[in-house]
Protein backbone atom coordinates (compact mmCIF):
# COMPACT_ATOMS: atom_id res chain seq x y z
CA UNK A 1 0.00 0.00 0.00
CA UNK A 2 1.96 3.01 -1.29
CA UNK A 3 1.57 6.12 0.84
CA UNK A 4 0.34 8.29 -2.04
CA UNK A 5 -2.69 6.18 -2.93
CA UNK A 6 -6.34 6.66 -2.12
CA UNK A 7 -6.23 3.29 -0.28
CA UNK A 8 -3.60 4.62 2.09
CA UNK A 9 -5.53 7.83 2.74
CA UNK A 10 -8.68 5.83 3.57
CA UNK A 11 -6.61 3.43 5.70
CA UNK A 12 -5.03 6.29 7.68
CA UNK A 13 -8.35 8.10 8.09
CA UNK A 14 -10.02 4.95 9.50
CA UNK A 15 -7.03 4.07 11.71
CA UNK A 16 -6.70 7.60 13.17
CA UNK A 17 -10.45 7.93 13.75
CA UNK A 18 -10.83 4.55 15.47
CA UNK A 19 -7.55 5.07 17.39
CA UNK A 20 -8.71 8.35 18.85
CA UNK A 21 -12.03 6.90 19.98
CA UNK A 22 -10.56 3.77 21.58
CA UNK A 23 -9.82 3.55 25.32
CA UNK A 24 -6.18 4.21 26.23
CA UNK A 25 -5.49 0.59 27.19
CA UNK A 26 -6.39 -0.77 23.75
CA UNK A 27 -4.67 1.95 21.70
CA UNK A 28 -1.22 0.22 21.52
CA UNK A 29 -2.80 -3.07 20.44
CA UNK A 30 -4.80 -1.32 17.77
CA UNK A 31 -1.54 0.13 16.39
CA UNK A 32 -0.15 -3.43 16.17
CA UNK A 33 -3.29 -4.59 14.37
CA UNK A 34 -3.17 -1.65 11.94
CA UNK A 35 0.55 -2.21 11.30
CA UNK A 36 0.10 -5.92 10.63
CA UNK A 37 -2.84 -5.22 8.30
CA UNK A 38 -0.69 -2.64 6.49
CA UNK A 39 2.11 -5.20 6.16
CA UNK A 40 -0.36 -7.93 5.12
CA UNK A 41 -1.42 -5.74 2.17
CA UNK A 42 2.12 -6.08 0.84
CA UNK A 43 2.29 -9.90 1.12
CA UNK A 44 0.16 -12.30 3.12
CA UNK A 45 3.21 -14.03 4.67
CA UNK A 46 4.93 -10.79 5.65
CA UNK A 47 3.27 -10.34 9.10
CA UNK A 48 4.48 -13.80 10.15
CA UNK A 49 8.04 -12.92 9.16
CA UNK A 50 8.08 -9.57 10.95
CA UNK A 51 6.56 -11.02 14.15
CA UNK A 52 9.15 -13.83 14.17
CA UNK A 53 11.98 -11.33 13.58
CA UNK A 54 10.72 -9.04 16.37
CA UNK A 55 10.34 -12.00 18.74
CA UNK A 56 13.92 -13.12 18.05
CA UNK A 57 15.31 -9.67 18.87
CA UNK A 58 13.02 -9.27 21.90
CA UNK A 59 14.29 -12.57 23.36
CA UNK A 60 17.95 -11.85 22.52
CA UNK A 61 17.77 -8.46 24.28
CA UNK A 62 16.51 -10.22 27.41
CA UNK A 63 19.30 -12.81 27.13
CA UNK A 64 21.88 -10.03 26.70
CA UNK A 65 20.62 -8.14 29.73
CA UNK A 66 20.86 -11.26 31.91
CA UNK A 67 24.17 -12.47 30.48
CA UNK A 68 27.05 -12.13 32.93
CA UNK A 69 29.87 -13.33 30.66
CA UNK A 70 30.42 -13.64 26.90
CA UNK A 71 27.97 -10.76 26.36
CA UNK A 72 29.84 -9.54 23.30
CA UNK A 73 29.73 -13.02 21.77
CA UNK A 74 25.93 -13.21 22.23
CA UNK A 75 25.56 -9.73 20.74
CA UNK A 76 27.79 -10.62 17.81
CA UNK A 77 25.83 -13.81 17.10
CA UNK A 78 22.46 -12.04 17.28
CA UNK A 79 23.50 -9.11 15.10
CA UNK A 80 25.30 -11.38 12.61
CA UNK A 81 22.16 -13.47 12.17
CA UNK A 82 20.13 -10.36 11.26
CA UNK A 83 22.83 -9.10 8.91
CA UNK A 84 23.25 -12.51 7.22
CA UNK A 85 19.48 -12.75 6.77
CA UNK A 86 19.51 -9.27 5.26
CA UNK A 87 22.16 -10.20 2.69
CA UNK A 88 20.51 -13.57 1.96
CA UNK A 89 17.28 -11.75 1.07
CA UNK A 90 18.99 -8.78 -0.57
CA UNK A 91 21.03 -10.92 -2.96
CA UNK A 92 18.28 -13.49 -3.59
CA UNK A 93 20.36 -16.35 -2.15
CA UNK A 94 17.20 -18.26 -1.10
CA UNK A 95 16.00 -18.19 -4.70
CA UNK A 96 19.33 -19.55 -5.90
CA UNK A 97 19.27 -22.39 -3.35
CA UNK A 98 15.68 -23.33 -4.24
CA UNK A 99 16.57 -23.30 -7.94
CA UNK A 100 19.61 -25.55 -7.28
CA UNK A 101 17.56 -28.04 -5.24
CA UNK A 102 14.60 -28.17 -7.59
CA UNK A 103 16.69 -28.18 -10.73
CA UNK A 104 15.77 -24.76 -12.00
CA UNK A 105 12.24 -24.34 -10.66
CA UNK A 106 12.41 -21.03 -8.86
CA UNK A 107 9.99 -19.71 -6.28
CA UNK A 108 10.56 -16.00 -5.95
CA UNK A 109 11.14 -15.16 -2.29
CA UNK A 110 10.98 -11.40 -2.22
CA UNK A 111 13.04 -9.10 -0.04
CA UNK A 112 10.64 -8.33 2.84
CA UNK A 113 9.30 -4.81 2.51
CA UNK A 114 11.21 -2.44 4.79
CA UNK A 115 13.47 -5.18 6.21
CA UNK A 116 16.52 -2.89 5.70
CA UNK A 117 14.89 -0.37 8.00
CA UNK A 118 13.51 -2.50 10.81
CA UNK A 119 16.67 -4.63 10.81
CA UNK A 120 18.61 -1.46 11.71
CA UNK A 121 16.05 -0.68 14.43
CA UNK A 122 16.54 -4.11 15.99
CA UNK A 123 20.35 -4.12 15.67
CA UNK A 124 20.69 -0.72 17.40
CA UNK A 125 18.22 -1.88 20.07
CA UNK A 126 20.41 -4.92 20.86
CA UNK A 127 23.62 -2.83 20.90
CA UNK A 128 21.97 -0.23 23.18
CA UNK A 129 20.75 -2.94 25.56
CA UNK A 130 24.24 -4.46 25.56
CA UNK A 131 25.84 -1.06 26.30
CA UNK A 132 23.34 -0.30 29.03
CA UNK A 133 21.96 2.72 27.16
CA UNK A 134 18.45 1.28 27.53
CA UNK A 135 16.85 -1.50 29.54
CA UNK A 136 15.31 -4.34 27.54
CA UNK A 137 11.61 -3.74 26.84
CA UNK A 138 9.67 -6.01 29.23
CA UNK A 139 6.54 -6.22 27.04
CA UNK A 140 6.63 -8.00 23.70
CA UNK A 141 3.47 -6.22 22.50
CA UNK A 142 5.20 -2.85 22.98
CA UNK A 143 8.36 -4.05 21.25
CA UNK A 144 6.19 -5.34 18.39
CA UNK A 145 4.75 -1.82 17.95
CA UNK A 146 8.31 -0.47 17.69
CA UNK A 147 9.27 -2.97 14.95
CA UNK A 148 6.04 -3.10 12.96
CA UNK A 149 4.91 0.56 13.33
CA UNK A 150 3.22 1.15 9.96
CA UNK A 151 4.20 4.81 9.34
CA UNK A 152 7.86 3.67 9.47
CA UNK A 153 7.86 0.03 8.44
CA UNK A 154 8.29 0.42 4.69
CA UNK A 155 10.89 3.21 4.44
CA UNK A 156 11.86 4.37 7.91
CA UNK A 157 12.81 6.75 9.46
CA UNK A 158 14.95 4.42 11.57
CA UNK A 159 13.75 5.72 14.94
CA UNK A 160 15.82 4.47 17.88
CA UNK A 161 14.16 2.35 20.55
CA UNK A 162 15.30 4.84 23.20
CA UNK A 163 13.26 7.56 21.47
CA UNK A 164 10.23 5.44 20.56
CA UNK A 165 9.48 2.92 23.31
CA UNK A 166 8.90 5.50 26.10
CA UNK A 167 6.31 7.23 23.88
CA UNK A 168 4.08 4.12 23.87
CA UNK A 169 3.54 4.58 27.62
CA UNK A 170 2.52 8.24 27.32
CA UNK A 171 -1.25 8.69 27.49
CA UNK A 172 -2.63 9.66 24.08
CA UNK A 173 -5.40 12.25 24.14
CA UNK A 174 -7.27 13.91 21.29
CA UNK A 175 -5.06 16.88 20.42
CA UNK A 176 -6.51 19.02 17.63
CA UNK A 177 -3.23 20.96 17.24
CA UNK A 178 -1.27 17.74 16.72
CA UNK A 179 -3.96 16.50 14.30
CA UNK A 180 -3.77 19.74 12.35
CA UNK A 181 0.04 19.66 12.21
CA UNK A 182 0.00 16.01 11.16
CA UNK A 183 -2.53 16.66 8.42
CA UNK A 184 -0.49 19.63 7.17
CA UNK A 185 2.64 17.45 6.91
CA UNK A 186 0.69 14.72 5.06
CA UNK A 187 -0.74 17.29 2.61
CA UNK A 188 2.73 18.83 2.06
CA UNK A 189 4.15 15.36 1.41
CA UNK A 190 1.40 14.50 -1.10
CA UNK A 191 1.94 17.83 -2.85
CA UNK A 192 5.71 17.33 -3.20
CA UNK A 193 5.42 13.71 -4.32
CA UNK A 194 2.45 13.78 -6.73
CA UNK A 195 2.86 17.23 -8.26
CA UNK A 196 6.65 17.46 -8.44
CA UNK A 197 8.61 14.26 -7.73
CA UNK A 198 6.47 12.08 -10.01
CA UNK A 199 6.30 14.78 -12.69
CA UNK A 200 10.09 15.15 -12.67
CA UNK A 201 10.42 11.36 -12.82
CA UNK A 202 8.19 11.19 -15.91
CA UNK A 203 10.46 13.67 -17.67
CA UNK A 204 13.88 12.26 -16.79
CA UNK A 205 13.09 8.54 -16.84
CA UNK A 206 13.16 8.30 -20.68
CA UNK A 207 16.77 9.56 -20.61
CA UNK A 208 17.87 7.02 -18.00
CA UNK A 209 16.04 4.27 -19.88
CA UNK A 210 17.76 5.12 -23.17
CA UNK A 211 21.21 6.66 -22.85
CA UNK A 212 21.31 7.36 -26.59
CA UNK A 213 18.40 9.80 -26.30
CA UNK A 214 20.79 12.77 -26.15
CA UNK A 215 24.45 13.40 -26.79
CA UNK A 216 24.35 16.88 -25.32
CA UNK A 217 26.41 16.95 -22.10
CA UNK A 218 24.49 19.99 -20.86
CA UNK A 219 21.18 18.13 -21.26
CA UNK A 220 22.60 15.23 -19.26
CA UNK A 221 23.66 17.64 -16.53
CA UNK A 222 20.00 18.73 -16.28
CA UNK A 223 18.84 15.10 -16.24
CA UNK A 224 21.30 14.26 -13.44
CA UNK A 225 20.28 17.38 -11.50
CA UNK A 226 16.63 16.44 -12.10
CA UNK A 227 17.13 13.03 -10.48
CA UNK A 228 18.75 14.54 -7.38
CA UNK A 229 15.80 16.94 -7.09
CA UNK A 230 13.33 14.12 -7.67
CA UNK A 231 15.01 11.95 -5.03
CA UNK A 232 14.88 14.74 -2.45
CA UNK A 233 11.26 15.66 -3.20
CA UNK A 234 10.27 11.98 -3.23
CA UNK A 235 12.00 10.86 -0.04
CA UNK A 236 11.36 14.03 1.96
CA UNK A 237 7.69 13.78 0.91
CA UNK A 238 7.51 10.23 2.24
CA UNK A 239 9.16 11.39 5.49
CA UNK A 240 6.65 14.26 5.81
CA UNK A 241 3.76 11.81 5.42
CA UNK A 242 5.32 9.33 7.86
CA UNK A 243 5.97 12.00 10.54
CA UNK A 244 2.56 13.58 9.88
CA UNK A 245 0.66 10.31 10.42
CA UNK A 246 2.73 9.71 13.57
CA UNK A 247 1.80 13.14 14.91
CA UNK A 248 -1.88 12.28 14.45
CA UNK A 249 -1.33 9.08 16.43
CA UNK A 250 0.47 10.98 19.20
CA UNK A 251 4.06 9.95 18.35
CA UNK A 252 6.91 12.41 17.77
CA UNK A 253 9.40 11.20 15.18
CA UNK A 254 12.70 13.01 14.64
CA UNK A 255 13.16 14.71 11.23
CA UNK A 256 14.99 12.77 8.53
CA UNK A 257 16.12 15.82 6.52
CA UNK A 258 17.53 19.15 7.62
CA UNK A 259 18.00 21.31 4.52
CA UNK A 260 20.68 19.03 2.99
CA UNK A 261 21.23 21.07 -0.19
CA UNK A 262 22.30 24.07 1.91
CA UNK A 263 25.32 22.02 3.09
CA UNK A 264 28.77 23.46 2.52
CA UNK A 265 30.58 20.10 2.41
CA UNK A 266 29.78 16.45 1.67
CA UNK A 267 30.30 15.58 5.36
CA UNK A 268 27.76 18.21 6.36
CA UNK A 269 25.40 16.94 3.62
CA UNK A 270 25.42 13.47 5.19
CA UNK A 271 24.59 14.92 8.59
CA UNK A 272 21.48 16.45 7.01
CA UNK A 273 20.36 13.84 4.43
CA UNK A 274 18.53 10.66 5.50
CA UNK A 275 19.57 11.58 9.04
CA UNK A 276 18.15 8.47 10.69
CA UNK A 277 20.36 6.23 8.50
CA UNK A 278 23.48 8.42 8.49
CA UNK A 279 23.36 9.00 12.27
CA UNK A 280 22.77 5.27 12.79
CA UNK A 281 25.89 4.43 10.77
CA UNK A 282 27.82 7.25 12.47
CA UNK A 283 26.96 5.91 15.94
CA UNK A 284 27.31 2.17 15.32
CA UNK A 285 29.94 1.92 12.54
CA UNK A 286 31.90 5.14 11.89
CA UNK A 287 32.52 6.31 15.48
CA UNK A 288 33.51 2.89 16.93
CA UNK A 289 35.90 2.34 13.99
CA UNK A 290 37.28 5.86 14.33
CA UNK A 291 37.81 5.31 18.06
CA UNK A 292 39.53 1.98 17.42
CA UNK A 293 41.90 3.57 14.88
CA UNK A 294 42.32 6.87 16.72
CA UNK A 295 46.12 6.60 16.94
CA UNK A 296 46.43 6.55 13.13
CA UNK A 297 46.00 10.31 12.68
CA UNK A 298 44.01 11.22 9.59
CA UNK A 299 43.58 7.54 8.68
CA UNK A 300 41.44 7.28 11.81
CA UNK A 301 38.79 9.14 9.83
CA UNK A 302 39.66 8.09 6.27
CA UNK A 303 39.34 4.30 6.78
CA UNK A 304 36.01 4.47 8.70
CA UNK A 305 34.62 6.90 6.09
CA UNK A 306 35.44 4.51 3.24
CA UNK A 307 34.01 1.50 5.10
CA UNK A 308 30.86 3.31 6.31
CA UNK A 309 29.92 4.77 2.95
CA UNK A 310 30.69 1.58 1.05
CA UNK A 311 28.26 -0.08 3.48
CA UNK A 312 25.69 2.63 2.69
CA UNK A 313 26.11 1.73 -0.98
CA UNK A 314 25.77 -2.01 -0.38
CA UNK A 315 22.75 -1.41 1.88
CA UNK A 316 20.96 0.28 -1.01
CA UNK A 317 21.26 -2.78 -3.22
CA UNK A 318 23.47 -5.45 -4.66
CA UNK A 319 24.42 -3.75 -7.91
CA UNK A 320 27.72 -2.29 -9.09
CA UNK A 321 26.30 1.22 -9.28
CA UNK A 322 25.35 1.28 -5.57
CA UNK A 323 28.87 0.14 -4.74
CA UNK A 324 30.34 2.96 -6.84
CA UNK A 325 27.88 5.40 -5.23
CA UNK A 326 28.85 4.43 -1.69
CA UNK A 327 32.59 4.22 -2.31
CA UNK A 328 32.61 7.60 -4.13
CA UNK A 329 30.80 9.21 -1.19
CA UNK A 330 33.34 7.58 1.14
CA UNK A 331 36.22 9.05 -0.89
CA UNK A 332 34.61 12.52 -0.82
CA UNK A 333 34.05 12.37 2.96
CA UNK A 334 37.64 11.14 3.41
CA UNK A 335 38.89 14.09 1.33
CA UNK A 336 36.79 16.34 3.59
CA UNK A 337 38.62 14.90 6.58
CA UNK A 338 42.03 15.43 4.94
CA UNK A 339 41.38 19.07 4.04
CA UNK A 340 39.30 19.91 7.15
CA UNK A 341 41.99 22.06 8.82
CA UNK A 342 42.77 23.93 5.58
CA UNK A 343 39.06 24.56 5.01
CA UNK A 344 38.73 26.03 8.48
CA UNK A 345 41.70 28.36 7.88
CA UNK A 346 40.25 29.40 4.52
CA UNK A 347 36.89 30.04 6.18
CA UNK A 348 38.53 32.54 8.50
CA UNK A 349 40.23 34.45 5.67
CA UNK A 350 37.40 34.60 3.10
CA UNK A 351 34.16 36.60 3.40
CA UNK A 352 31.54 34.36 5.04
CA UNK A 353 28.98 34.64 2.23
CA UNK A 354 31.58 33.83 -0.46
CA UNK A 355 32.87 30.80 1.46
CA UNK A 356 29.38 29.42 2.09
CA UNK A 357 28.14 30.05 -1.48
CA UNK A 358 31.18 28.36 -3.04
CA UNK A 359 30.84 25.48 -0.54
CA UNK A 360 27.14 24.98 -1.33
CA UNK A 361 27.74 25.04 -5.12
CA UNK A 362 30.68 22.59 -5.01
CA UNK A 363 28.76 20.22 -2.70
CA UNK A 364 25.70 20.38 -4.96
CA UNK A 365 27.74 19.68 -8.11
CA UNK A 366 29.47 16.70 -6.49
CA UNK A 367 26.11 15.32 -5.35
CA UNK A 368 24.60 15.74 -8.83
CA UNK A 369 27.42 13.64 -10.28
CA UNK A 370 27.64 10.93 -7.61
CA UNK A 371 23.86 10.44 -7.28
CA UNK A 372 23.78 9.44 -10.98
CA UNK A 373 24.95 6.02 -9.73
CA UNK A 374 21.94 5.78 -7.39
CA UNK A 375 19.72 5.92 -10.47
CA UNK A 376 21.44 3.85 -13.13
CA UNK A 377 21.46 0.37 -11.57
CA UNK A 378 24.58 -0.51 -13.57
CA UNK A 379 27.87 1.28 -12.86
CA UNK A 380 28.82 1.31 -16.57
CA UNK A 381 25.72 3.39 -17.36
CA UNK A 382 26.62 5.80 -14.59
CA UNK A 383 30.14 6.24 -15.95
CA UNK A 384 28.70 6.70 -19.47
CA UNK A 385 26.49 9.56 -18.19
CA UNK A 386 29.40 11.16 -16.30
CA UNK A 387 31.46 10.89 -19.48
CA UNK A 388 28.68 12.62 -21.46
CA UNK A 389 28.47 15.44 -18.88
CA UNK A 390 32.25 16.00 -18.96
CA UNK A 391 32.34 16.01 -22.78
CA UNK A 392 32.15 19.80 -22.82
CA UNK A 393 32.52 19.92 -26.63
CA UNK A 394 29.01 18.44 -26.86
CA UNK A 395 27.46 21.10 -24.63
CA UNK A 396 24.81 23.07 -26.46
CA UNK A 397 21.83 25.22 -25.54
CA UNK A 398 19.71 23.11 -27.91
CA UNK A 399 18.74 20.87 -25.00
CA UNK A 400 15.84 19.12 -26.66
CA UNK A 401 13.50 19.63 -23.70
CA UNK A 402 10.04 21.13 -24.06
CA UNK A 403 8.88 24.26 -22.24
CA UNK A 404 7.03 22.02 -19.76
CA UNK A 405 10.37 20.54 -18.62
CA UNK A 406 11.79 23.93 -17.70
CA UNK A 407 8.61 25.06 -15.94
CA UNK A 408 8.46 21.87 -13.85
CA UNK A 409 12.21 22.03 -13.22
CA UNK A 410 12.10 25.67 -12.03
CA UNK A 411 9.01 25.05 -9.86
CA UNK A 412 10.62 21.91 -8.38
CA UNK A 413 13.68 23.96 -7.39
CA UNK A 414 11.36 26.55 -5.80
CA UNK A 415 9.46 23.84 -3.88
CA UNK A 416 12.73 22.21 -2.77
CA UNK A 417 13.98 25.58 -1.49
CA UNK A 418 10.67 26.12 0.39
CA UNK A 419 11.02 22.63 1.84
CA UNK A 420 14.60 23.44 2.93
CA UNK A 421 13.49 26.67 4.61
CA UNK A 422 10.72 24.79 6.46
CA UNK A 423 13.22 22.11 7.57
CA UNK A 424 15.81 24.64 8.73
CA UNK A 425 13.23 26.47 10.85
CA UNK A 426 12.48 23.21 12.70
CA UNK A 427 8.93 23.27 14.16
CA UNK A 428 8.39 27.03 13.82
CA UNK A 429 6.62 26.74 10.47
CA UNK A 430 4.24 24.03 11.66
CA UNK A 431 3.56 25.91 14.89
CA UNK A 432 2.69 29.00 12.84
CA UNK A 433 0.40 26.95 10.57
CA UNK A 434 -1.38 25.46 13.58
CA UNK A 435 -2.07 28.98 14.92
CA UNK A 436 -3.88 30.05 11.71
CA UNK A 437 -7.62 30.57 11.93
CA UNK A 438 -9.68 27.53 10.86
CA UNK A 439 -11.08 29.02 7.60
CA UNK A 440 -7.53 29.97 6.54
CA UNK A 441 -6.29 26.45 7.34
CA UNK A 442 -9.02 24.89 5.22
CA UNK A 443 -8.33 27.36 2.43
CA UNK A 444 -4.70 26.17 2.40
CA UNK A 445 -5.84 22.52 2.30
CA UNK A 446 -8.25 23.30 -0.55
CA UNK A 447 -5.48 24.99 -2.54
CA UNK A 448 -3.24 21.94 -2.03
CA UNK A 449 -6.03 19.54 -3.04
CA UNK A 450 -6.78 21.59 -6.17
CA UNK A 451 -3.07 21.77 -7.01
CA UNK A 452 -2.81 17.99 -6.74
CA UNK A 453 -6.00 17.46 -8.79
CA UNK A 454 -5.05 19.98 -11.48
CA UNK A 455 -1.28 19.55 -11.73
CA UNK A 456 -0.59 16.18 -10.14
CA UNK A 457 1.04 13.50 -12.23
CA UNK A 458 -1.77 11.02 -12.59
CA UNK A 459 -4.72 10.36 -14.85
CA UNK A 460 -6.32 7.41 -16.66
CA UNK A 461 -4.18 4.34 -16.17
CA UNK A 462 -1.98 6.13 -13.67
CA UNK A 463 -0.44 3.98 -11.03
CA UNK A 464 1.20 5.98 -8.22
CA UNK A 465 4.93 5.78 -8.77
CA UNK A 466 6.51 3.92 -5.85
CA UNK A 467 8.67 5.97 -3.53
CA UNK A 468 12.28 5.49 -4.57
CA UNK A 469 13.49 4.46 -1.11
CA UNK A 470 10.84 1.72 -0.84
CA UNK A 471 13.16 -0.42 -2.96
CA UNK A 472 15.92 -0.27 -0.35
Amino acid sequence: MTFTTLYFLVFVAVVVLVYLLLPQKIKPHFIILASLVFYFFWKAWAPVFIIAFALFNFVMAKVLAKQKSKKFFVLLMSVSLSVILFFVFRYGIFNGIIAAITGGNTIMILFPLGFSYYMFKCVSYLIDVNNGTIAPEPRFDYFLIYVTYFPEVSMGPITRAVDFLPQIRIKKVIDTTALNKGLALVAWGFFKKIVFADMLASMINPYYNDLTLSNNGFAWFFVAFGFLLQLYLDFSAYTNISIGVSKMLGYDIKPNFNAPFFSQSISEFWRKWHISLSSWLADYVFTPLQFLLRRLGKFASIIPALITFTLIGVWHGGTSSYLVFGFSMGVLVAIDAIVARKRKKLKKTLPKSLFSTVGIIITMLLNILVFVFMRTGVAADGFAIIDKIFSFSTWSLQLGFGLEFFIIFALSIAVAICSHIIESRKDKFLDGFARLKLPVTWLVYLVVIFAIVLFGYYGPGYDAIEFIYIGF
Partner: protein
Amino acid sequence: MTREKVTGEVQNIFRDLFDDESIVIDDNTTADDVEDWDSLEHINLITSIEKHFSIKFAMSEVTHFKNVGNMIDTITTKVS
Protein backbone atom coordinates in the same frame (compact mmCIF):
# COMPACT_ATOMS: atom_id res chain seq x y z
CA MET B 1 45.71 16.09 40.29
CA THR B 2 42.76 18.27 41.30
CA ARG B 3 39.67 18.66 39.15
CA GLU B 4 40.43 22.40 38.73
CA LYS B 5 43.92 21.62 37.42
CA VAL B 6 42.49 19.04 34.99
CA THR B 7 39.93 21.61 33.78
CA GLY B 8 42.69 24.17 33.16
CA GLU B 9 44.82 21.70 31.19
CA VAL B 10 41.83 20.46 29.16
CA GLN B 11 41.04 24.09 28.34
CA ASN B 12 44.59 24.54 27.00
CA ILE B 13 44.15 21.43 24.85
CA PHE B 14 40.91 22.91 23.46
CA ARG B 15 42.67 26.20 22.67
CA ASP B 16 45.58 24.46 20.91
CA LEU B 17 43.36 22.09 18.95
CA PHE B 18 40.79 24.63 17.81
CA ASP B 19 43.44 27.33 17.38
CA ASP B 20 41.39 29.77 19.44
CA GLU B 21 42.83 31.38 22.59
CA SER B 22 39.45 32.80 23.56
CA ILE B 23 37.85 29.40 24.29
CA VAL B 24 36.66 29.11 27.90
CA ILE B 25 35.20 25.76 28.91
CA ASP B 26 33.00 24.82 31.84
CA ASP B 27 31.16 21.68 32.90
CA ASN B 28 28.17 22.45 30.68
CA THR B 29 30.16 23.08 27.49
CA THR B 30 29.10 20.83 24.58
CA ALA B 31 30.03 20.51 20.90
CA ASP B 32 27.34 23.10 20.12
CA ASP B 33 29.29 25.75 22.06
CA VAL B 34 32.63 25.37 20.26
CA GLU B 35 32.85 26.25 16.59
CA ASP B 36 34.42 23.48 14.49
CA TRP B 37 33.89 20.80 17.18
CA ASP B 38 32.69 18.09 14.81
CA SER B 39 33.16 14.32 14.82
CA LEU B 40 36.62 14.62 13.21
CA GLU B 41 37.86 17.12 15.79
CA HIS B 42 36.23 15.10 18.56
CA ILE B 43 38.50 12.14 17.90
CA ASN B 44 41.51 14.50 17.72
CA LEU B 45 40.45 15.94 21.08
CA ILE B 46 40.17 12.48 22.63
CA THR B 47 43.62 11.50 21.30
CA SER B 48 45.20 14.77 22.49
CA ILE B 49 43.74 14.32 25.98
CA GLU B 50 44.91 10.69 26.11
CA LYS B 51 48.45 11.71 25.11
CA HIS B 52 48.59 14.70 27.46
CA PHE B 53 47.40 12.85 30.56
CA SER B 54 48.91 9.47 29.55
CA ILE B 55 45.55 7.76 29.94
CA LYS B 56 43.29 5.60 27.77
CA PHE B 57 39.57 5.99 27.40
CA ALA B 58 37.20 3.09 26.78
CA MET B 59 34.68 3.41 23.92
CA SER B 60 31.80 3.19 26.43
CA GLU B 61 33.26 6.12 28.43
CA VAL B 62 33.54 8.33 25.36
CA THR B 63 30.00 7.57 24.16
CA HIS B 64 28.60 8.52 27.56
CA PHE B 65 30.22 12.00 27.56
CA LYS B 66 27.28 14.37 27.49
CA ASN B 67 29.37 17.50 28.12
CA VAL B 68 32.86 18.65 29.11
CA GLY B 69 31.97 18.09 32.78
CA ASN B 70 31.56 14.32 32.17
CA MET B 71 34.86 14.28 30.31
CA ILE B 72 36.71 16.09 33.12
CA ASP B 73 35.18 13.77 35.75
CA THR B 74 36.48 10.71 33.86
CA ILE B 75 39.95 12.24 33.36
CA THR B 76 40.17 13.25 37.06
CA THR B 77 39.25 9.71 38.14
CA LYS B 78 41.88 8.23 35.83
CA VAL B 79 44.76 10.55 36.82
CA SER B 80 44.14 10.57 40.58
